[in-house]
């Protein structure tokens, strides 16, 4: 195991975050605070409770997930896309590092950043809305698992993308709609029966439902199913990355 190699990539990526603190941390925290003010305080006060949880508190897990997904994807995809774009990838390709080590470095750093951000948003939310965490260990577990899985997914997008547009297209056109329709702002039990069925094809539903369960002990879908679905997606991403490095797809001619 090339520990020094992993550490070098990890530090490089973390240094990039600290260089762009305003963009990578301050902006998402501010945006989420706006959500809490608008949906939590202003509109939330006129909404009824969902599953006997106040609306302001109900949307917290969903909002954290929304940011976790977006930040994991954009951090990791940008991290690997930049060397490809700038040409500095030659060094990574000629270095004695395996794909596992490359993943530990890039995905590890991206996941670290989004977990820190997730915790920051949770702390910020406390300023606006009172909430409790029923299963803190599971909460951290879901946070880590989701951060790693979607950082991996972002890494794949970064490998696949050959333009800045492609880098943005998946997060904007796929992930954001899936998150908004994944029950961040509502319980899927509020949907008409047909849509309740259709929405089960949305993987984000399982993430948000499981995460919300760790807060309030109520879930839209079975918790075990949530965990299984997240692991399943993790394994799909891992397999794809393994194949990419094995064949050199898009990175090694």
């Amino acid at each position, binding site marked *: 195991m090339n520990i*020094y190699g992993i550490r070098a990539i990890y530090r490089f990526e973390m240094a990039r975050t600290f260089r762009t603190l305003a963009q990578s941390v301050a902006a998402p925290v501010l945006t989420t605070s706006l959500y809490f003010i608008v949906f939590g305080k202003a509109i939330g006060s006129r909404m009824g409770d969902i599953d006997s949880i106040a609306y302001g508190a109900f949307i917290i897990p969903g909002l954290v997930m929304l940011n976790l997904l977006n930040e994991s994807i954009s951090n990791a995809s940008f991290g690997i896309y930049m060397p490809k774009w700038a040409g500095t990838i*030659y060094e990574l*390709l000629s270095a*004695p590092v395996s794909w596992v080590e490359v993943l530990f470095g890039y995905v590890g750093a991206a996941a670290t950043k989004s977990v820190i951000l997730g915790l920051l948003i949770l702390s910020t939310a406390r300023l606006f809305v009172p909430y409790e965490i029923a299963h803190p260990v599971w909460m951290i577990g879901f946070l880590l698992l989701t951060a790693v899985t979607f950082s991996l997914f972002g890494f794949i997008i970064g490998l696949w993308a050959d333009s800045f547009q492609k880098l943005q297209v998946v997060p904007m056109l796929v992930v954001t709609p899936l998150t908004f329709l994944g029950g961040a702002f509502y319980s899927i039990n509020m949907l008409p029966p047909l849509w309740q069925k259709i929405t089960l094809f949305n993987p984000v539903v399982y993430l948000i439902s499981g995460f919300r369960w760790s807060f309030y002990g109520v879930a839209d879908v079975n918790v075990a199913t949530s965990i299984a679905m997240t692991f399943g997606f993790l394994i799909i991403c891992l397999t794809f990355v393994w194949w990419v490095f094995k064949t050199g797809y898009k990175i090694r001619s």
Partner: protein
Amino acid sequence: MPTSASMTIDNAVPIISLRGVNKTYAGGFQALKNVDLDIKRGEIFALLGPNGAGKTTLIGIVCGIVNASSGTVIADGHDTVRDYRAARATIGLVPQELHTDAFESVWATIAFSRGLFGKPPNPAHLEKVLRDLSLWDKRGVKIMTLSGGMKRRVLIAKALAHEPSILFLDEPSAGVDVDLRHDMWRMVRELRENGTTIILTTHYIEEAEDMADRIGVINKGELIVVEDKDVLMRKLGKKQLTLTLRQPMTSIPVGLSAWSLALRDDGDTLVYSFDSQEEETGIAELLRALGEHGIEFKDLRSSESSLEDIFVSLVHRPKGAMV
């Protein structure tokens, strides 16, 4: 520690060995055709070839950036595919293009390179590398603010950060001023003295002539010659004696057919080509014979073909012609 006996054996074994290496890109372009090449430990090897000849592809395959379509590469005893970790740890690469991390500092980027190649931190070594390249004063500066020549130095520093025993320099003097070229070649010589093997590609053939121990010429993906520089220049070098005539001639007299003569400049100049390896150049006899034929000249000079002439003749000779 290796014993002195094993060191001797090591020196006989090539440090890099390519066997039957082929590369066909996805578009069908065949960049390398069945390349066999051995690089000796501790030598400076210059790879020459026109643009698109396959030099960068060849380097890319040894360094792990390009997958070979077939064939094997051994670097310092390690297969570059099966045992890529050990192989790559011994190699440093200075790429042709100035690919750098714009927002990083010089120090951060070379510390990154050292770590990436699996070496524990060693600030003393990094400091030496930066001082040798006159970069020490710039260590805290963001790379994007540096000039092209300085960026080239940074790339060299990155390649040397992990103390490689093999150094590839792909067109190191492209777009580089005279000062840096002198610094660079001084450094290359020092590295060689310390046992580093250096493989370089260059467009400045006089540099190869000046620096290299051996030369390989590659054209259209084929390695057409690999030879000690001196041997190559002796074997393929031609000498010429050029005589500027007092009276122009229309044809060469039959009596002079024993020499390989040619008329140039509308008969004003007579050129005698001879093999530089021959002990008897035939010049004395030629001059006597010219006197006998009453041919007078006002000037004479002799010239030797440079590596550049040899290179041009190799690259443009008809396919299949023997070296």
